[in-house]
């Protein structure tokens, strides 16, 4: 008993000291029930943290002190304290949470409940469920505009973007897009939203002021069957220069000119590339590759894949803590 206590104390101390050393990326491993922690300087896994069952969506609190984890098969959102890297709390999430988004107020968490066709809004401080909003079948992608005005949910089988007013928690507009919409990403000025559709193979560009589609993109990866080109994760550089689109089982990431919507290049990464995140100075882009069980690192300046890092089984989400 005593030794156990000592060990935990020691582990906690090590845990306390580690994050200060280097900038880190967190990767959720869907079939290992773990998070891999990657040191972004050495680009190596430095720690593996046990979490709930089937972790998928992960995101950082706006003050970068906590990491929220959708533990889909536990029907809960777990809260990881970044200072100690320990699960310190859980939030009510509704059934089967897959993806979520945090309002800029750092309080309202919008959670897509895939099995229930509902978006649940939870206050992360009081743990109150503020609203449950009926959406289409298999709600998946969730995004909140940086100005906090809109929460957008994608429903996969209904093939819609549901635009939720964050003050009333009511749907104000539904936009039909391609089959199986997966992910929405806002430009930093909240003026443009990018939405990917996995089976449709498209990315839809939405003018947020008018809530209308202004452009639709498709992708052609040389030498890859068109059926395998399945857009999922999207990441935008803050200078408005690039959009990166993960193209799923085509094993490529598309580099898109964020102004002209022209595809500039396709970069070969690991198998079934799912989600993406940029590091704090936006020099490197990290991608999760589910089937090959690794993370690819892309040099943003050279647009080259420079490394692959082995993580757990079926890595799903990745976020990089810019303060660490």
């Amino acid at each position, binding site marked *: 008993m005593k030794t156990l206590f000592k060990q935990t104390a020691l582990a906690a101390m090590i845990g306390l000291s580690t994050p200060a050393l280097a900038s880190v990326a967190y990767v959720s491993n869907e079939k290992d029930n773990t998070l891999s922690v990657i040191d972004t300087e050495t680009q190596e896994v430095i720690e593996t943290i046990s979490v709930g069952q089937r972790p998928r969506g992960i995101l950082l609190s706006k003050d970068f002190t906590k990491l929220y984890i959708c533990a889909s098969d536990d029907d809960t959102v777990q809260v990881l304290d970044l200072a100690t890297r320990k699960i310190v709390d859980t939030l009510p999430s509704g059934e089967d949470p897959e993806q979520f988004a945090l309002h800029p107020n750092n309080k309202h968490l919008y959670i897509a409940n895939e099995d229930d066709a509902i978006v649940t809004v939870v206050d992360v401080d009081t743990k109150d469920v503020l609203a449950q909003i009926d959406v289409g*079948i298999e709600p998946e992608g969730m995004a909140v505009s940086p100005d906090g005005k809109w929460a957008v949910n994608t429903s996969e089988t209904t093939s819609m973007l549901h635009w939720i007013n964050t003050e009333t928690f*009511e749907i104000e507009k539904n936009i039909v897009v391609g089959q*199986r919409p997966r992910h929405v990403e806002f430009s930093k000025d909240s003026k443009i939203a990018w939405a990917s559709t996995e089976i449709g193979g498209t990315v839809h560009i939405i003018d947020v002021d008018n809530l209308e589609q202004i452009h639709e993109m498709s992708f052609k990866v040389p030498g890859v069957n068109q059926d395998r080109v399945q857009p999922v994760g999207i990441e935008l550089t803050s200078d408005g220069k690039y959009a990166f689109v993960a193209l799923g089982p085509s094993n490529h990431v598309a580099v898109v000119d964020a102004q002209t919507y022209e595809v500039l290049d396709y970069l070969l990464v690991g198998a079934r590339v799912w989600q993406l995140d940029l590091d704090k100075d936006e020099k490197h882009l990290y991608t999760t590759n589910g089937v090959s069980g690794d993370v690819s690192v892309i040099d943003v300046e050279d647009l080259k894949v420079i490394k692959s890092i082995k993580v757990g089984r079926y890595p799903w989400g990745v976020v990089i803590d810019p303060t660490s």
Partner: protein
Amino acid sequence: MSFLSRTVAISLITLAAASPLQAETLDVRIGYLQWVPHQGPVLSNIIPEPEDAGLRGAELAINDNSTTGKFLGQTYSLQSEVADSEEGAIAAFDAMRENGFDLFVVNAPASTLKALTEKAGDNTLIFNAGAKDDALRTGQCHVNLLHTMPSYSMLTDALGQWLNQRRWDEVFLITGPTQADKGWADAFRRSAKRFGLEIVEDKPWTFDADLRRTASKELPLFTQASDYDAVVVADVRGDFGEYVPFNTWLPRPVVGTQGMSPVTWHRVVESWGAAQLQNRFRELAGRDMNGEDYAAWAAIRSMGTAVTDLNSANPTDIRNFLFSDKFQLAAFKGRKLTFRDWNGQLRQPIPLVHPRGLVARAPFEGFLHPNTEMDTLGFDRPESECRING
């Protein structure tokens, strides 16, 4: 408990708030007809097949369509009839047509399906979600008949590709006595030729003993041959096939309708969001989703996808949309699914499964096709006499 009641209260409020914005509503009525002849007594009756296979898939698709429809002012309803004879199925079809139904999903033998299609007028659309007969896709096609159920040859081509890429190319074929068994075996013989497999023994199953007692004695003798890589069983209703694995003369795997099987759908399929479909189905039906359920589901989801785009439930409009470039069905098989324009068959990958796991999924890499790899499964355009789109 208090959390639960609160969330229920909130969801009631938001349900009201999310009601259709459009004033006009479009009501899409779909008829589901099922007539599955009794298979006769079978030896392996330990795990019975569900009697509502197909129907529950149709119901789930109606729910799925309705959830989408509520944002667009479209409602969906299903009228279903599980008949106990061909005459009963035809009478139900006539009654529904008199009531103005013109969209149908049919889970019935090929003969019944043909009788219904012949009675149907021009502006009617029928989806075959039951009959796997290749003849319906190669010669006896009908302009208004689409198939969401894969054909026997699509299933056996999936198996043939798999045996080829495993290099297990010498097989021992056992065929049961029913018409379905012969249909399956004929399809497999064609697949064997296509994918370079040699059928070293081709034996009909003639025993009528109770194999639960004697399988271990009879099957080793029955499967004697100098050598083979695998035993292929054609026993569609599941009479003797379950007793073939582990009872073969040589220590070889058993594939086909038993052992490892090419199927339309199975509970072990979980990739590409399939886990969510499986969960939804289990919640609705209290059992696992099977191939008949999937075919009926895919039929009604195809119609729903068309109605979402067209805002019309006119059968001719729906049919035109389904054969256009705009149609693609997201159906949890990792690819967008489309209809073959020559015979109305839904292209689809075929999972190869054993009772507790997924082994592989056809088509396999390396089996090339100029248009889509999915057309390496089943009768391709040049092999079919059908030209239902001219």
